[in-house]
């Protein structure tokens, strides 16, 4: 017998904002994870300003051209630039070598160069993450992480965090609304901080209680610590090809620097 427990009015046959799949979404998540790791490692260790600039430019263009929502990509990069503004102000103060004086403070070119490198690295890494991420739902990243041999406990932690994040955010919003409905107006005064602290505190307590209930729900369904999944997509030749080409390209600048340039 099929039962209708109501809620047809809430049925969403399509996800809100659903778009056509991106080309990158066709590549197996594990291959994208491997590729992203290689490029992120390169961006993190690279000290050559020219190579770093090239990496940043290429990945920004790739993320804008083939990543999800170019407008959103640009706004995220803008947000990152704003977040890094303090680095531009602080790092030049602690550099060494030549520099200039402004409003009685000594600024060093080497510090400015460090700030520029930080900006380039962060922007490149963000672009890499956005490009490789595509529009892939998070459950497929779980498959990806499992496939490249991530520890089981880490994969389970990843799964639970991603599953319950929207729920915790929703609970947080509800608590904020309830607090506002009773006259809490936020702000940055002592009362404001105390209010935020109690909201965060109650959120943590609720999360703890939920984790206990989830553990019981897991045990009740015979969970023995080994997380099984129903379907894992197979790796194709194109996936492997993408990974090999991507990692080879990431390794090329390093090979050039260490083997050819010396």
């Amino acid at each position, binding site marked *: 017998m099929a039962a209708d427990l*109501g809620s047809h009015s809430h049925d969403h046959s399509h996800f809100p904002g659903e778009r056509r799949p991106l080309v990158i979404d066709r590549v197996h998540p594990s291959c994208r994870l491997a590729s992203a790791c290689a490029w992120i490692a390169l961006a993190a260790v690279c000290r050559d300003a020219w190579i770093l600039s090239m990496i940043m430019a290429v990945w920004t263009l790739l993320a804008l051209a083939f990543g999800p929502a170019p407008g959103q990509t640009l706004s995220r990069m803008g947000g990152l630039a704003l977040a890094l503004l303090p680095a531009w102000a602080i790092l030049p103060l602690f550099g060494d070598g030549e520099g200039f004086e402004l409003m009685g403070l000594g600024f060093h070119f080497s510090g400015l160069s460090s700030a520029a490198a930080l900006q380039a690295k962060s922007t490149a890494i963000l672009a890499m993450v956005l490009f490789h991420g595509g529009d892939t739902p998070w459950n497929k990243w779980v498959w990806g992480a499992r496939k490249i041999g991530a520890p089981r406990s880490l994969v389970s932690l990843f799964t639970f965090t991603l599953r319950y994040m929207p729920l915790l955010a929703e609970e947080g919003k509800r608590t904020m609304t309830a607090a506002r409905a009773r006259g809490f107006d936020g702000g940055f005064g002592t009362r404001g901080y105390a209010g935020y602290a109690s909201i965060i505190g109650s959120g943590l307590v609720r999360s703890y209680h939920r984790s206990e209930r989830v553990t019981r729900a897991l045990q009740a369904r015979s969970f023995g610590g080994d997380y099984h999944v129903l379907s894992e997509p197979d790796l194709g030749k194109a996936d492997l090809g993408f990974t090999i080409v991507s990692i080879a390209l990431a390794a090329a600048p390093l090979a050039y620097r260490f083997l050819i340039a010396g």
Partner: protein
Amino acid sequence: MNEVNPPDAGSVEISGLSYSYPGGIMALEKVSLEARPGEKLGLIGPNGAGKSTLFLCILGLVEGFMGEVKVGGLSATEKRDLGRLRREVGLVFQDADDQLFNPTVIEDVAFGPLNLGLPKEDALQRSETALAQVGFPSELFERPPHMLSGGQKRRAAIAGILAMEPSVILLDEPTSDLDPRGRRNLARLLSSLPQTMLIASHDLEFVLMTCDRVALLNGGRKITEGETRVVMADEALMEENRLEKPHSLIAHKHG
């Protein structure tokens, strides 16, 4: 290790069950209950009566309770029986979000069968059958649980239990997030299922629709047990235990 004997399958026997929360607050005090195979037994009572804790004890999900809990001959106090017992008993949690933690609905429903060691094909088949049984639309099988409505979550949670093919199903406040039509349809679905059921609910009309017998709990103690209509029609008893006689049992005067 005890085995489930076919004549015992689906039977629930609880005798002298007592449990205190850490800190000494008494949650259950010498509760004794029995449900025959296939029977639908309602558990009613005010907040804090001990209904949800009773379910946790049946599955051995809390430690340190006293007394005896047996399901199909398997004891919840014997550690070696717990694995088999949890295969025999399915618990539908009050908050469906506690139960639905997998990335997609179909993965979540298959979670139990996969834990039972079923091959993926069989687990998938069982999951699809269970979802069809509760009327869950197939186009939402791949939907993440947090994007479902309350009714859809409830259906998915029940399907997750049905897919494990238990002989006993425990339902904790199953109508808490359902609209009236959904509630009526859930009552129809539960009545059509052959499993033994223990249904804890404040929704007395729902219990009246689904259960032939009820046990009334208050303050961790069993106050009475009997035929649903008889217990619920006792206005004084209901009032004493912070409950109300269901509207459908109140005789209406016409004219």
